[in-house]
């Protein structure tokens, strides 16, 4: 299935782009992150990254569906 991934902050820099649409068989955000981390050498381990699907926080084990927009959220640091 096709999903769109948006990148912010450290992940945006390590990926070198802000958004991509890609083909994956990953059933969950956790699986998709591991796939992308292996491909792009992201330094953040999966347990330090939260996921959002279609603009809302989602569990790492939530079901991904075709057409979803996924954001991986590095540790936040506002203020």
């Amino acid at each position, binding site marked *: 299935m096709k999903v769109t991934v*948006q990148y*912010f*902050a*450290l992940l*945006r*820099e390590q990926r070198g782009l802000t958004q991509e649409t890609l083909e994956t068989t990953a059933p969950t955000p956790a699986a998709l992150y591991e796939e992308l981390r292996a491909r792009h050498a992201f*330094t*953040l*381990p999966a347990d*330090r990254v939260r996921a*959002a699907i279609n*603009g*809302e*926080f989602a569990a790492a084990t939530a079901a991904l569906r075709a057409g979803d927009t996924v*954001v991986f*959220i*590095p*540790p*936040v*640091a*506002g*203020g």
Partner: protein
Amino acid sequence: MFRISTDSIDPATLEAALTDARAGACVTFCGWVRNANDGQPVLSLEYEAFAPLAEKEGERILAEAREKFALLGVAAVHRVGHLQIGEAAVWVGVTAAHRGAAFDACRYIIDELKARVPVWKKEHYASGASAWINCATR
């Protein structure tokens, strides 16, 4: 109301918007870009947000504060972009009939904003190095 802003923060305008004849207390927090962190000289800071989710999560935090404390008004703004030393990065303002609720709520809001809202900052150091805060992996 919580929003992510690319424009500079103007505390006076924000505080004026909280005017309320029933309010006896207004507590504000302003986070300024400071010239050092953990002993390292800082030259500037870049803030980046996942704005739609940041605004939703920020609104949720303000709603929680209204539930927990006897507030009359509440507002908060987080700046994004490349900020210089002394610029305001985040502002929280709260009004209440009495000061206890206003202090407690203002503290609650900034603590939760910092912990939960998808905003990131990258520090640029005098040494030429830079780092995304909280993203060290070693």
